[in-house]
């Protein structure tokens, strides 16, 4: 069944089995999105991902089908993450980020220190845009839809983020294959 059919089942008939299928389909990319934003904090990512899916279920009737379901879901995930940041008044200063990295390192899934070390050098918005494009495969217009940034702003974040990452990778000896 495609996403629209499943969403219709949930919205009209409150079909929980249909929503179960949607969660199973999107749990990996959404959890990965949160892992990247939280720099590898597994438990926090899972909490935020659960919150994201619950919000999607409660507000399912607001999905109009103008964008794809995945875009709508990423938009909810983006809002959940930045609500969490505002609630916890997280700043982007080095000490706070370093403390998070130290805590996150305990619960990193697999060997992902490298990726989070690279993502750490970016600002929050650069990290969001870069991961949405390069890890979740979202085009620029969808990223603009998800983040409510103009497309020009998204392009700027992507360009700046990639420049920083290229320098970081070269400095750390990352070679082309």
């Amino acid at each position, binding site marked *: 069944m495609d996403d629209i059919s499943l969403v219709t089942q949930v919205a009209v*008939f*409150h079909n*929980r089995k249909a*929503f*179960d299928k949607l*969660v*199973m389909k999107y*749990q*990996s990319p959404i*959890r*990965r999105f949160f*892992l990247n934003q939280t720099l590898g904090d597994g438990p926090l990512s*899972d909490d935020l*991902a*659960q919150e994201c*899916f*619950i919000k999607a*279920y*409660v507000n399912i009737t607001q999905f109009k089908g103008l964008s794809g379901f995945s875009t709508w879901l990423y938009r909810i995930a983006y809002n959940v993450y930045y609500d969490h940041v505002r609630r916890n008044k997280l700043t982007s200063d080095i000490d706070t980020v370093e403390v998070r990295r130290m805590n996150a390192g305990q619960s990193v*899934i*697999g060997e*992902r220190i*490298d*990726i989070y070390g*690279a993502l750490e050098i970016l600002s929050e918005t650069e990290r969001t845009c*870069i991961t949405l494009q*390069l*890890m979740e495969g979202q085009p620029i217009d969808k990223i603009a839809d998800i983040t409510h940034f103009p497309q020009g702003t998204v392009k700027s974040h992507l360009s700046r983020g*990639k*420049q920083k*990452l*290229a320098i970081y*990778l*070269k400095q750390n000896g*990352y070679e*082309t*294959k």
Partner: protein
Amino acid sequence: MKLNDEQLVEQFFAEHIVEIADNGFTKKVMKRLPQSALRWNKLWTAGCWAAAILLFFLLDGINSVKAAFIHVTGDLLGMLASFQFDSFSPFIIYLGILSTTAVIAYNVIENSN
């Protein structure tokens, strides 16, 4: 071939994309879903059933169903009575049995697959 900076970054991220196993995550989400929508759904379904049963008896549904059953049965019996088996050749009967068997076998195989 040396990659430019953008390709370097893209290659790095492409190497680090992982699929995250469910490991009970979906189950946890489903347990946390609010139940209020389900209650409203059950109430609505019960209401529709009650209205349907009420209308069935108010509009003399029993006699309508009885009449429909008698008509259908009558038509079926009439059709069977008008059947003349001696007008069919053995080949036609054999073809009919073979076709029916083939359809049944196909459905059994499909269901077992």
